[in-house]
């Protein structure tokens, strides 16, 4: 077991564990914090895969911006208490069973693949900022520009919905 495998396992356990903690925490603030831990461990994975740009963006955008926004909203609403009075055990069971069987079905199908398909670890330059940047502004200029429309609509949305009449 080399260091790559070890870190993979470590990061994976961390990600899955925190994810479980996130969905099971009663306090929304804890959930947010656990989710941030998940994001960090996924960023760790990105680094392991030598996708540096995404690792950083993930931290900045997700953990930094988005989750902070969530946190703000939760605080704003004063939801930092245990808000859900009754836990529906039956729903939990059904959810776990159906989710679990979905996972099982998918995995049992996918694991039947015979071919070993190794993943390039720690090396490779596709994930470097310069390379991605070049591609993004040449080949991907259309989606890039078009996503501005997305942001415009998000902006208008904030105005339309958020602004008091």
């Amino acid at each position, binding site marked *: 077991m080399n260091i790559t495998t070890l870190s993979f396992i470590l990061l994976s356990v961390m990600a899955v564990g925190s994810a479980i903690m996130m969905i099971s925490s009663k306090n929304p603030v804890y959930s947010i914090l656990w989710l941030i831990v998940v994001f960090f461990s996924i960023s760790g994975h990105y680094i392991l895969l030598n996708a540096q740009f995404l690792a950083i963006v993930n931290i900045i955008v997700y953990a930094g911006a988005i989750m902070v926004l969530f946190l703000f909203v939760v605080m704003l609403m004063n939801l930092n208490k245990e808000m859900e009075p009754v836990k529906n055990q039956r729903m939990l069971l059904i959810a776990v069973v159906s989710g679990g069987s979905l996972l099982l079905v*998918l995995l049992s*199908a*996918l694991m*039947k*693949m015979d071919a070993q398909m190794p993943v390039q670890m720690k090396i490779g330059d596709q994930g470097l900022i310069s390379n991605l940047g070049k591609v993004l502004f040449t*080949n*991907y*200029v*259309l*989606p890039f520009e*078009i*996503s501005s*429309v*997305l942001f*415009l*609509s*998000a902006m*208008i*949305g904030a*105005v*339309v*919905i958020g*602004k008091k*009449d």
Partner: protein
Amino acid sequence: MNAIILSAIWGIVMMFSAVFIKNKSVPKYLALAGIALLFIANGIELNSGRSFFNIDVHGMLHTNSFNLTFIAVALGCTAMFFLLNGRDIEKTGAHVGEYFALLFFILCGVSLCATFNTLLILFIGIEIMSIPLYILTGSDKRNLKSNEAALKYFLMGAFSTGIMLMGIAFIYGGSPNATFYIDSIQLGTGKLPVMILVGLVFLMVSMSFKVSAAPFHFWTPDVYDGAPTVFTSFMSTIVKVAGFFAFVRLFENAFGAIHTQWQTLIVFILISTLLIGNITAVFQQSVKRMLAYSSIAQAGFMLFALFALNVRAKEGLVLYAAAYSIATIGIFSILIKMEDFTIDGFNGLSKKHPILALSATIFLLSLTGIPLTAGFQSKFYMLMAAVENGHHFWVVIVAVIFAAISAYYYFKIIQAMYFKEPAEDFIQTSEISNGFRILLILNAALIIVLGVYPELILGWLYH
């Protein structure tokens, strides 16, 4: 291409109009001008095959007469929508300019969905269509139903986005070419790698969600019911048929070669959609909610395009898009004028407003699929396609039985309008202008024209 860029630009124009122009009715005219411009620009592209904008898109978009015609249909329906419902949009809330801006952005998304050639554009296009819709759904801010609809729509929409992305990821992973271009995923005709299959199912689920096909339709009735009626009209027509066009475009180009391998799934979805849509619609008392279920039922018929996936199916889809949208926009525009959205609210409409009743009848007949209406032609093309396809013939028979059931709820409204007496001293509708009447008649006439002469649209498909 013209439509994508101009609609984005015009969206921004509308956005600024909201800031600079205080008069509430100006945005409507501006929007009409914009849609006219879009329509003409798209028409020029369709006619000459050349775009105003010469951008290297690296094959991410693919325009041909087929999808340009579809865009033309969508734009035309939007123009009809603006004409019929412009005033009602003004009444929805304070941000008229913004609403129109969002509608134009949605049109941008529609155009993207019609012309995409990579999964990335599809994803962005779908999101551009969805996000403004979340907002428009919640635009009636004081109305709890509208709030609730927006949140439901948003949560479920986000969930389906997740599903879709998972699908895209698996397609990418399974593709030997490592590509998002739908036409070069390169599948043999033999047995598929399991990753592609997984991706295909995920994609199918998320697209079914967008077109509200069962069992992924659950958002539809609630959202259509809760959203402001004008926007319900828009999202149940133009956005939905765009979703369908994207659905068909995706599956035809990416997985068309292995059609038989996933046809069973479509059969399952198709039958459940027809079943749930038609059966549940029967019991509805609110016309708005009934139309929501009817739109599910109609989706069931449109799914025949995927079921058959041949030339006739694609022709039929475009025709269906037009027929369904025109009729639904028409019937919604009448519904908006009603004071009472229940079926009883329509009682005796023919006495007070014969023109409204007549055109509503034509719309409903078209939705039922009675000959001489566009609705018949479109259903006919779908059935043609399905029969031509040659597999699962029984599905066609089941479908027509459901089509007969659909008459049950559409005719309830006709019965109410013509054969029942209104309650005493009942103010049935808000004020109705003569212009509206004329537009309605035009709209109804369009349905008849398309019913007699579908070439009007189909002729452009092979231009």
